[in-house]
């Protein structure tokens, strides 16, 4: 599991061109390269599963921006749907190293 990897993909979704975003839905290949994702993280990203990604601790700013770009809808419409999807999940930590275990 890699919160950092999830954030990396989300940032790529924010910054890439429209063609790459459209392609991501069918073939996430390039945008996931080098991100060390678990199968669940890959699934949540390609399905735009806001609630799961939010609970995993994806950075909320990147999550909202990245999935809005992927959705392509209007600000208000997307934001309302987004907020509905995270409404019950409070404020999970979005640090990328919170799950790091101490060295032996």
């Amino acid at each position, binding site marked *: 599991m890699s919160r*950092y990897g999830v*954030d*990396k993909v989300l*940032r790529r979704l*924010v*910054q890439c061109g429209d063609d790459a975003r459209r392609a991501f839905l069918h073939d996430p290949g390039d945008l996931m390269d080098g991100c060390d994702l678990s199968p669940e993280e890959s699934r949540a990203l390609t399905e735009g599963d806001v609630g799961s990604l*939010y609970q995993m601790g994806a*950075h*909320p*700013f*990147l*999550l*909202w*921006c990245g999935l*809005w*770009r992927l959705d392509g809808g209007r*600000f*208000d419409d997307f*934001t*309302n749907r*987004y*907020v509905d999807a*995270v*409404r*019950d*999940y*409070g*404020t999970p*930590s*979005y*640090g*990328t190293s*919170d799950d790091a275990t101490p060295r032996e």
Partner: protein
Amino acid sequence: MRRRLDQSKPDVLVLIGSDHLNQWFMDNMPPFLVGKARKAAGPFRSEMEMFGLPPYEANIDEWLAKEILSGSYDRGVDLAFSDEFGIDHSFTVPLSYLYPEGGLPIVPFFTNTMALPIPPATRFYKVGEVLRTVLEELPSQQRVAVVSSGHLSIEVGGPRMGAINAEAGRPDPTFDDEALRLLRRGDVDGLLRHATLERMLQAGNVTPGFLNFVMLAGVARGAGAQQAQCRGFAPFLSWDVPETGDRR
């Protein structure tokens, strides 16, 4: 604010802002960084596309940027620097309002308020104090204004995020009112106790952008802000600092 800046006739603007993970990222995140290239341009293409923001370009006062770096090193603050960077909306939006025609050179001063771990309020205050000392002891007679973008409680990408014009733009008015009161009073101890990471995240998931105002309080050496108010969910704060020689 623009009128007040016009009256004080600065030669250069030190502009504090927080990159929103557009370029500084968790692979290499500077807590505090000074931009010392010849020019700064922004915002990023994705921000223009998402938020309809106009482009902005400013010359950088490279000499002052280097003075801030070396002066800070001499006073125990090790800032990062960059010769190649962009400025995001945290810089271009205030510049577009304050100097729509451009023309005033800037020194961009980046702070990390987006990626955990974020430096504590005590550090922001200290860096602000050191910046003030460096500017006061410059060997030039430049008049320097320090401006920062930032915010009070705010939630983006969390359950309390609202439409831009909704009340939810200020998810925690209690945090905000106390923060503004402390800034007006110049109550530094109270401000540093108030702006803990835990309390800020409770107020809204990206509220640590408030720390840029703590840095301004450090620049003001703890003096109370002459203006500290909220219009809608946008805070406006200002400090006039005493003249130092020919500078202010």
